[in-house]
């Protein structure tokens, strides 16, 4: 019953209620033929190594609102000028409802306008409608360089758009620099690229890193119309090291080791009393063993 386990994982990962169909009590938007509406939104992040991460978020309308839908197969296509679709691959939507696909621009030709046109499609099934979403991206990249000078950390960022004519700077783009933290990412710097597409930001010192003071730094230009998201990532030892050692808790009232004076007091008090008990018990034995004659 392998597939039951797979289905259960879908239940458990997102903690989602099972999607009920034909439930008269649920306020589910249904078409006249009784299927669930779905919605797909496709976004993409471009990386300096020339790859593009395609994220297809699939949601379905349950009980009046759209909810992320895991475990559905999403197909990705590259569309050329003649509207022909080249299948790139499939992927299954994860617990966050997003199906991911990494597209490598190397060796791929752009369309006539210099862009890549993507399509993500969900075919649907007996109970859910299909949906699709397209995305047009002009190749671009954001390059991040780390500079350590004196006692300051600086990040040099350059955003360029790539086209057949060569690279052109992307000006007036809002860049944000994030540091990856345990549960999320913290924005530590931001700015706008100048006319040359460059930006220099100071990176704050004193952020905690891991044991070796590593920090996972990501610079992002988010949600541009032409280029989608641009991301650059690096790991630098620009943080403060945090000790991952498990040390013993101090001797305190709330730890498992009592303060020394407590232990001493305990042994002194208990010892005194119980030693005297022993002495008395010894005396009792002596009484028993006494062979003398009674007095008078």
């Amino acid at each position, binding site marked *: *019953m*392998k*597939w*039951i*386990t*797979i*289905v*259960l*994982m*879908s*239940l*458990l*990962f997102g*903690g989602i209620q*099972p*999607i*009920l*169909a034909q*439930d008269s009590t649920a306020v589910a938007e249904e078409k006249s033929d009784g299927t669930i509406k779905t919605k797909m939104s496709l976004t993409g992040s471009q990386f300096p190594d020339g790859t593009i991460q395609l994220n297809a978020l699939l949601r379905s309308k349950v009980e009046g609102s759209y909810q992320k839908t895991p*475990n*559905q*197969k999403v197909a990705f296509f590259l569309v050329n000028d003649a509207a022909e679709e080249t299948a790139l691959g499939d*992927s*299954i*939507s*994860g*617990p*966050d409802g*997003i199906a*991911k696909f990494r597209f490598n621009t190397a060796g791929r030709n752009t369309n006539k306008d210099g862009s890549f046109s993507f399509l993500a499609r969900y075919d*649907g*099934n*007996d*109970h*859910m409608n299909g949906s699709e979403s397209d995305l047009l991206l002009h190749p671009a990249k954001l390059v991040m360089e780390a500079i350590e000078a004196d006692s300051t950390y600086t990040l040099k960022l350059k955003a360029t758009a790539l086209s057949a004519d060569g690279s052109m700077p992307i000006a007036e783009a809002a860049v944000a620099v994030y540091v990856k*933290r*345990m*549960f*999320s*990412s*913290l*924005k530590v710097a931001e700015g706008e690229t100048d006319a040359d597409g460059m930006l220099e930001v100071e990176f704050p010192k004193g*952020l*905690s890193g*891991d*044991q070796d003071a590593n920090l996972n730094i990501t610079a992002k230009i988010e949600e541009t119309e032409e280029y989608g998201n641009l991301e650059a990532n690096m790991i630098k030892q620009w943080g403060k090291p*945090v*000790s*991952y*050692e*498990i*040390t013993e*808790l101090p001797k305190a*009232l*709330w*730890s*498992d080791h009592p303060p020394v004076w407590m232990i001493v007091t305990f042994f002194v008090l208990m010892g005194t009393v119980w030693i005297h008990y022993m002495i008395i018990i010894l005396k009792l034995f002596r009484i028993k063993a006494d062979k003398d004659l009674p007095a008078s």
Partner: protein
Amino acid sequence: MEPNDNNELNPRRDFLKSTALGIAATAAVAACGSASCSCKKPTDTSGETGEKVTLLSPDGELVQVDTGHLKYVPKNVVVSKEEARQGIPGRKFVMVIDLARCKNARKCVTACQKMHHLPEEKEWLQVRLMQDSEDAAPYWFPKTCFHCDNPPCVKVCPVDATFKRQDGLVLIDTDRCIGCKFCMAACPYSTRVFNWSEPELPEEIMCLPYSPETSVPSKVGTVEKCDFCPDMARAGELPDCVKACPNGVFYFGDQNEDVVTNGDETVKFSDIIRDRGGYRFAEELGTEPRVWYLPPRDRLFPVERGLENLPDELKERYKNVGKEG
């Protein structure tokens, strides 16, 4: 701990999960703390309950499955007792609760109860209606365990069943707890609850592998409380209460990183405390709580919103607020 980026389906996982279930169930036979424990082995699928639930298969089909065939698999990794006492290395968890945003939606309460399989009456996270004095304005006050740095509960436990970890959390080992309830008498914040009778849980929950980090299943005659969900933290996920709140009231994070997040916003802990006047409740008691509150200033909702749409029995709870001086 890096969050798991790999969301693609891994066929190996199914196998591992099945084996884990097998190990878990076997271990659970030994680990069951209940007096009347009888954890069945996973191969026993004969227990059809007749109750059916609708699930989605990967082929996109909706199928009806008997609940007896559902085997509950633990969500996150269950660590050893030793690791559970040591804590997650390098972390110092802290929570910030924004009183200006709370409208008593109680999604946090229900999410916590759902995650830990608690009955409706048992609340590890309570939302109180506080009025500091007669002329002060009432406000909604979600209260978790404060995981104090100078915990009065840990001080008095005679058997070391409740303990403080290096990562700041105070947890309970309900395999060790003798149920003397001294910790409940010692906690000034009324945060601990007791299992006065055998918890009514389905068998698959009773047989889940237990660790002080999961705090599931509840055991009769022992104490329990909010644990800041360290098992989820190990998987890089925020506690359910933080995720469930529709208004972003709960911020959770690592004080070593000086960052807290409510799922949407990520801020520096020291910044938010400084800028919004963060404080700790009843600081004068000297318990050094790890939960900070942001005062109910520039509120998102009037306090009356919290009483709307509330079932009568819950409304009854707050009828005395504002009457006593």
